[in-house]
């Protein structure tokens, strides 16, 4: 199937927002999505963006059942490893179910790798849910390894009240 991979623009935020919700539904967490299309426009397309996006698009005659031509995306940003320096973090990678198995996911990930390497990054990081077997299989085939299982590093989060208390110096 014909498809193109390109940098996301402001106009893509409507579809990105739609697909973020689809991915959240797949991860059984759609009630946790608070970010709106407008937030994405401000946070991703202003002078100092907090993320970058790439879109997978198919021609009009291959559009989805509901009429969408933007059928996959990836959101990424640059991070820093105190051991190795510049790194790229792939926050989201998603292809609509009806367009899977055609190399689109691989092409999106390949694009993020190219962009990361061009920016001087020496590693790509991302997180996966431990029950997501089909994604795990896909990623392992690309040559990645599980830092949490292999080295025992756990992802931690401080948010909401905990963050406020910490800022105020409470214990």
């Amino acid at each position, binding site marked *: 199937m014909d498809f193109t991979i390109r940098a996301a623009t402001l106009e893509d935020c409507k579809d990105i927002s739609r697909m*973020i919700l689809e991915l*959240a539904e797949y991860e059984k*967490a759609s009630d946790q*999505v*608070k*970010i709106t299309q407008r937030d994405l426009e401000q*946070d*991703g397309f202003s002078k100092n963006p*907090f*993320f970058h996006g790439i879109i997978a698009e198919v021609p009009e005659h291959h559009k989805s059942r509901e009429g969408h031509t933007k059928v996959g995306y990836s*959101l990424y*940003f*640059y*991070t820093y*490893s*105190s*051991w*190795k*320096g510049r790194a790229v973090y792939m*926050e*989201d990678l998603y292809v609509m179910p009806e367009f899977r198995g055609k190399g689109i996911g691989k092409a999106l*990930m*390949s694009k993020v*790798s*190219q962009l990361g*390497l061009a920016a001087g990054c*020496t*590693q*790509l*990081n*991302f*997180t*996966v*849910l*431990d*029950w997501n077997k089909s994604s795990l299989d896909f*990623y392992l085939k*690309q*040559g*990645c*390894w599980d*830092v*949490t*299982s292999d080295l*025992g*590093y*756990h*992802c*931690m*989060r*401080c*948010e909401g009240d*905990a*963050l406020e*208390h*910490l*800022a*105020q*110096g409470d*214990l």
Partner: protein
Amino acid sequence: MASFILRKAEPKDVSDILRLIKELAKFEEMEEQVVLTEKELLEDGFGDHPFYHCVVAEVPKDKQSVEGYTVVGFAMYYFTYDPWIGKLLYLEDFYVMKEFRGYGIGSEILKMLSETAVKTRCSGMHFIVAEWNTSSIEFYKRRGAADLSHEEGWHLYEIDKCNLLKMSSK
């Protein structure tokens, strides 16, 4: 010992930052993994588009460490993005020299970082901890941190440069 100050790192601090990065890595038994250089730290942290931000803890000269250091702690962080909740502050490294622990330096650094997170409208602060590092885990849990790997099943994955090159040419 009371006196220490926290301040934004400056270019002159890169040598101390690298020293402290290596000390923390040694504690994690990962010292040989540190390939970062002072030159990279300088370019990447103090150019037009910094990849990271850093705060350092400094003591007066008369309180210097056994080897003569006055920069005795640091935190390296940057901003990330969660498409569900927005901006986050990611804490990459956080360390206080053993000699200077128990004086509240770590707590003050964390307080400063969370103030930064709140001021810049971040929804949270993320970081990773090694599961065997029970004293650090307790330190963080006391401050309300949740273990996402344990509670939600998130695993951190990495693809190294060699595999990135393979993937980018497919």
